[in-house]
């Protein structure tokens, strides 16, 4: 049930954040990953702890799956000193150096070249690690996406590009933005190995990332593509299906293919699903996160007067 636990851990945390957020004490934008957990869980399981990741505005799941500190995450949302960025960055800049999650950047496409740079440094230093770059479907429209893939391929860098295609950029469907182009062909045209994965299937994603990882270290960049779906609104804790920008049929289709449901079905099929254990696990996560809320509320904010000292590193 390890994979299921991985998924559930993120799901419970995100749901608790959504619930707690309503109190308006976490006063920063949040881009929740509910529905999209399979990818970071699958990817992270196949990584070495010393592998690097970079992420986007929608960074919670990447951070949690890699093992980022929950307290630092929650305290960051509350804007406190013990947050990942001392409260300065907010929800969209999660990182945890201790697990080599180096940055999250909410400028679409902004972290892609940074991940490539990490890959380049790894290669120059002869390290047998990879740099994993998470991004959404919209990021593949930015020029810097193209430039970054081009450079990674040119230098054969140990980089894994992970595209989480949830079909939307805010409220805008991928069709309106990309028509019927094939991302696979684009990636392959740049001499980058393209790997499609089964939707929201942790196991498949894990297996393929494992292959991708060793391929990347010995041969150069790989692109993991995964379709997925977010359950809630683009930014915020609520459901926004009343806005009708996503067809009801489509929503229903994907809710049925919720990664957790898929995983539970799989486990049930092989008679490995232990409901009590699962509920216990969820409860334990719930407790952990609720403790984090409590701690975060008690934590102090960073001192304003010290901020100007952070303009420059000394």
């Amino acid at each position, binding site marked *: 049930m390890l994979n299921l636990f991985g998924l559930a851990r993120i799901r419970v945390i995100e749901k608790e954040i959504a619930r707690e957020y309503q109190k308006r004490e976490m*006063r920063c934008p949040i881009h929740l990953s509910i529905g999209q957990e399979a990818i970071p869980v699958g990817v992270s399981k196949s990584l070495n702890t010393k592998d690097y990741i970079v992420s986007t505005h929608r960074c919670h799941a990447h951070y949690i799956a890699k093992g980022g500190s929950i307290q630092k995450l929650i305290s960051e949302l509350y804007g406190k000193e013990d947050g990942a960025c001392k409260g300065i960055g907010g929800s969209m800049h999660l990182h945890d150096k201790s697990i080599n999650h180096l940055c999250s950047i909410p400028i679409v496409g902004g972290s892609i070249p940074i991940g490539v740079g990490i890959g380049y440094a790894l290669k120059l230093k002869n390290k047998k690690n990879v740099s994993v770059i998470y991004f959404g479907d919209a990021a593949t429209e930015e020029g810097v996406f193209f430039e970054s893939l081009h450079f990674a391929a040119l230098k054969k860098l140990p980089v894994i590009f992970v595209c989480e295609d949830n079909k939307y950029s805010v409220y805008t469907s991928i069709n309106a933005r990309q028509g019927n182009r094939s991302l696979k062909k684009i990636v392959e045209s740049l001499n980058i190995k393209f790997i499609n994965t089964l939707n929201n299937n942790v196991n498949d994603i894990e297996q393929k990332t494992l292959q991708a990882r060793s391929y990347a270290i010995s041969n150069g960049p790989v692109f993991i593509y995964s379709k997925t779906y977010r359950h809630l609104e683009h930014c915020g804790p609520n459901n926004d299906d009343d806005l009708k920008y996503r067809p009801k049929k489509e929503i229903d289709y994907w809710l049925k293919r919720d990664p957790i449901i898929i995983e539970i079905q799989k486990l049930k099929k092989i008679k490995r699903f232990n409901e009590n254990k699962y509920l216990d696990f969820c409860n334990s996560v719930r407790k952990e996160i609720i403790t984090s809320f409590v701690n975060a509320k008690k934590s102090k904010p*960073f001192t304003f007067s010290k*901020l*100007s000292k952070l303009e420059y590193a000394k």
Partner: protein
Amino acid sequence: MPNKNNLFTDAISDAFVQSMQKNKNVIIMGEGVTDPKGIFNTTCEALKRFGPQRVIETPVSENAMTGIQIGMSLLGKKSIFIHARVDFSLLAFDQLINNASKWHFMYGGTMNIPIVIRLIIGRGWGQGPQHSQSLESVFSHFPGLKVVVPSTAHDCKGLMISSIFDKNPVVFIEHRWLHNYSSNYSKKFYKISLNDSIGLKKKGKDLTILSSSIMLIESLKVEKILKKFGISLEILDLRVLRPLNLKKLFTSIKKTKNFLFVDNGWKSFGVGSEIFANILEKKLILKNTPVRLACKNFPTPSSHYLNKDYYVTVKDICLEVCKILSVKKSTQKKIIIQCDKILSKVPHDLPDLNFKGPF
């Protein structure tokens, strides 16, 4: 007309709809312009009336889209491209600065680029370092650009219409916090000249405050507060930064002999720098040292604890005026109480209590 509420956003919507009615070459482009929220409800009405051929959804490709705007303008299309945050326009600086700003000049006056780049300054609810930059001083450095920073619905509509029909690239910067302010504006099609940099918003005699955008609104609040204490402020709205015409400022300073500039962004190499340099060159005689009030000198922190003291507030402005005018301590105390009362009404990281997002 969708301006029954007279919101700032209604004024923008109105400017769009009326301009598109007037001239079929006017189009709107941007990420999200056709979505249900229609850029804070400023493009919905235009979409409803003119359809997706003239309110055009675009991929997330800022630099190319700006170049595409330029190309379209060469064949007579007048487009408004919208960036939901000023910060995103940094991706388009090549096309905007290297091409659009110089085009008319570098092609010897044979062509011109009538485009609008509409930018929104983010603030509050943890927007943080990459979603709240206020870069009007940067744009204003470049010959060939016009830079507009409206603060009231009335000005906004007239300036937007002028911007759309101007023959040059206009950077139109509006502050997210102005969106829900309502103020009267005419339902007619009207223009406000882009050569008229400064609007006189309040007459006064003790001290001149010059500011733009949301800081102008804050300055107007200050004027009201201080009036009660016998301090008379003249409030000027710096609504066009380029071309810059400071005549009204000079006249005002000659009268009040005291000056405070309130900036939306950073002080160094900022808007106030240029204003102060002009004052020095004009040899204006001031009774007291003028002051530039601005955001603190670092990126915007996300945490509401930390950005509470990052932005200039009515209290900061009041205190600075008191300092400049050497207002008695006892009066200052009373003013502070007033300010604190006002500030306590709405959390500092929200423009108003109705503000729910999208953030």
